[in-house]
């Protein structure tokens, strides 16, 4: 059984999409050199975005029954245009997947092999909670990266989301 309700998962997923879009609106205004500018402790703004999207892609691939042996290089996107194309492709898959969820499905056990090839298994709902929480953790880092390159990060608090969407 999943350790989270479908109602909560949907709520978090909607918030996640809203917050990601708010950060993207600021991210896309940075100069291209700033996207791959190395920031101590944070890698770079571009690599944080790539990691966030690659994690979604990795899990969708595992849920689909395939097990990649490595994560792609998070530094591979040199321009906003390249990163945006990747973002659109991953999020289209993600949103299509979210639309298929129901109570029964989130309780199904997903089996996969981690990046070291070790077997693992967990209910789908727990995996989705991991992904949404992972997104929130890195949202904090993207915000720090934006501030470090002189941009004002947008407010992405859950309470702001609720006020704008209720």
């Amino acid at each position, binding site marked *: 059984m999943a350790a989270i309700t479908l109602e909560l998962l949907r709520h*978090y997923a909607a918030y996640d999409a809203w917050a990601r879009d708010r950060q993207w609106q600021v991210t896309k205004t940075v100069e291209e050199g700033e996207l791959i500018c190395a920031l101590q*402790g944070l890698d770079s703004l571009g690599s944080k975005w790539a990691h966030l999207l690659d994690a979604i892609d990795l899990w969708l691939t595992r849920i689909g029954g395939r097990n990649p042996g490595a994560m792609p290089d998070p530094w591979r996107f040199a321009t906003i245009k390249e990163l945006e194309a990747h973002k659109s492709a991953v999020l289209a898959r993600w949103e299509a997947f979210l639309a298929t969820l129901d109570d029964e499905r989130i309780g199904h056990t997903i089996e996969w092999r981690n990046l070291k090839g070790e077997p693992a298994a967990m209910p789908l709902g*727990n995996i989705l909670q991991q992904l949404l929480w992972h997104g*929130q953790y890195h949202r904090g880092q993207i915000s720090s990266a934006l501030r470090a390159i002189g941009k004002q990060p947008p407010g992405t608090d859950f309470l702001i989301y609720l006020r704008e969407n209720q």
Partner: protein
Amino acid sequence: MSLLHSIQRQFRHDAWAKARLAEAVRGLTDAEFARDLGPGFGSVRAKFCHTVDAEHLWLQRIVDGVSAAERPNDNRHATRAEFLGWYEQVQARKQALIAGLTEDRLRVGISYRNLSGKPFTQPLYELLQHVALHAAYHRGQIAACLRALGKQPPATDYIDWSRENP
């Protein structure tokens, strides 16, 4: 899976993740803990203290019915020991709130005023979602601060905890 169980589980993960970060703080010197790491970062002290102060602010609003008009200074703790004492105190109060929740209580409206004095009423579970998401966002920033200090931040992913706590 109920809303109550989902929320309580989120806070069990949150407590575990915070305890791991507190352990990392114990491994720093007081000077590292307080070191200003530059724009976008602040310090481990400021980020961790902000996270704990936010929880305290919500405990006051939810449990005590008191809406503070301002937040304390994030840099007020001179030492790690002083901060960790505050951290333990707030965590104990938060655990008591989470342990005493019921399904009905989660849906009760909580009235409070924000820092500008504006009144709001929202169901308790939404406020608790906000508290958990806010903590996850700042965990990412504390991890970036630790990395900027040359330390390896602890793994705090939900999936790492969930593997041991199915």
